[in-house]
């Protein structure tokens, strides 16, 4: 037992070291993209123009980034965090993928088993996503529009990816924890009745806070 907990510490510690190195490398490569593009085109945008563009999106993006980092830390684990924030598309892909993998393997996100299953799942998902995107862009470019265009037979399916994905995930979670689930879904629906256009990005943290408070109340009242 002692040896196990010692090696657990070493694994997580190591993942922090590797994660930091990879993340900073990724930051360097990603940041060099605009530099190289500008150098190639010989077009260096005025600082004022970049600031004006950023001013419209950065406050929201930066606030979301901080909230996401805090909210996903206990779920995705160490490896999963370093990996998923580099590869992106977290709430619509990496997070549900990791949740589904942990659920199927019957491991808790708080355990080290959960940590490794989450990392494996996010790594596989990142590789597959990157390959699909690259393959589609390079190889299938000529036939792509027929599959993804507005009037393709498949168009409705692609527009309904999120309800399909979160319906399947929700069925599993909601049926196991229906007492915790009822109130958040109900309150969010009521909120949407009054302010229908709240985007998922804003709805997400609100949903999490409601669910956490409600779970705490249920626990205090000894209903769960």
């Amino acid at each position, binding site marked *: 037992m002692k040896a196990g907990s010692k090696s657990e510490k070493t694994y997580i510690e190591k993942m922090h070291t590797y994660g930091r190195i990879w993340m900073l*490398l990724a930051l360097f490569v990603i940041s060099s993209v605009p530099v190289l593009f500008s150098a190639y085109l010989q*077009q260096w945008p005025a600082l004022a123009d970049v600031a004006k563009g950023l001013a419209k999106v950065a406050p929201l993006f930066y606030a979301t980034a901080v909230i996401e980092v805090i909210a996903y830390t206990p779920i995705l684990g160490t490896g999963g965090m370093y990996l998923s924030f580099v*590869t992106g598309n977290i709430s619509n892909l990496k997070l549900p993928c990791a949740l589904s993998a942990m659920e199927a393997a019957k491991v808790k996100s*708080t355990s080290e088993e959960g940590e490794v299953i989450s990392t494996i799942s996010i790594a596989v998902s990142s590789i597959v996503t990157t390959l699909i995107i690259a393959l589609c862009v390079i190889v299938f470019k000529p036939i792509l529009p027929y599959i993804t265009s507005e009037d393709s*037979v498949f168009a409705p399916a692609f527009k309904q*990816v999120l309800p399909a994905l979160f319906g399947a995930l929700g069925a599993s*979670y909601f049926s196991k924890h229906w007492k915790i689930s009822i109130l958040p879904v109900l309150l969010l629906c009521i909120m949407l009745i009054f302010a229908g256009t709240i985007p998922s990005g804003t709805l997400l943290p609100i949903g*999490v806070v409601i669910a956490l408070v409600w779970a705490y109340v249920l626990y205090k009242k000894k209903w769960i």
Partner: protein
Amino acid sequence: MPSDFKENGFFVAIGALVVLVVIGQSLFFLVKASKRAKELGIEKTTIKNTIVSSALFTIAPALAIVATIIALSNALGLVLPWIRLSVIGNISQETSAASAALEVVGGSLSGKVTDEYSFALITWVMTLGSSLPLIIIPIFLKKLQKGIKTAASKTDSKLVDALSAAAFIGLIAAFVSRAIIGQGTAGDNPLYGKSFGDGAGIMSVLTLISAVAVMLILEKIAAKFKLKWLETFAMPISMFAAMGVAILISVALPENIAYLEWRG
């Protein structure tokens, strides 16, 4: 394609470099985590199932990302959207960053970007707008985890379990409630205009219900007949089945019913 300044060999090479880094990191983490899983005594089949089901699970959302790249490519060419959607960010973030940058120079994503200055400006705004997590995670993640661990160790494990389940449920509830009653936001989407139709309605509710129903049925079957493989693949199967239902609805029902959205 070669005559367009937005798509050239140099940019493609940069894209390839970005993809290599992403795949390199993923492979590295995959190997490390798989080794650790073996040390922890996790069964080989569990690891294998995790890999296969995660790959299957990823296909449909990845194709949805490809669809966004195609949509953005009209204005930005293929290479930049490809690079940007392979790293950080997500569909809606990248789209709004690009259109914010274009507004500065008086353009919009509904037309082709024809001058090099605007194009360079877009790459800067997209990149600077989304890179913050790559700075805060290396600095704060360890401290954040420590804080959470300390708090959790002082708390009853039953409450910790309830709270961690609640965090997932809150996330899922946000997307589920949007599919039930949310209003479309695409009306102001510079890319798709009014016809995109991402509001809740017949299609989203029926897709949601199908996903829930198929998932519950598959879970029941898997439990009754002790089918471990089905347990693993229930999630991706339900997702594909529900997407199939969406296609069926669009083909079988009259257009004004199939595409009916409660609130547009």
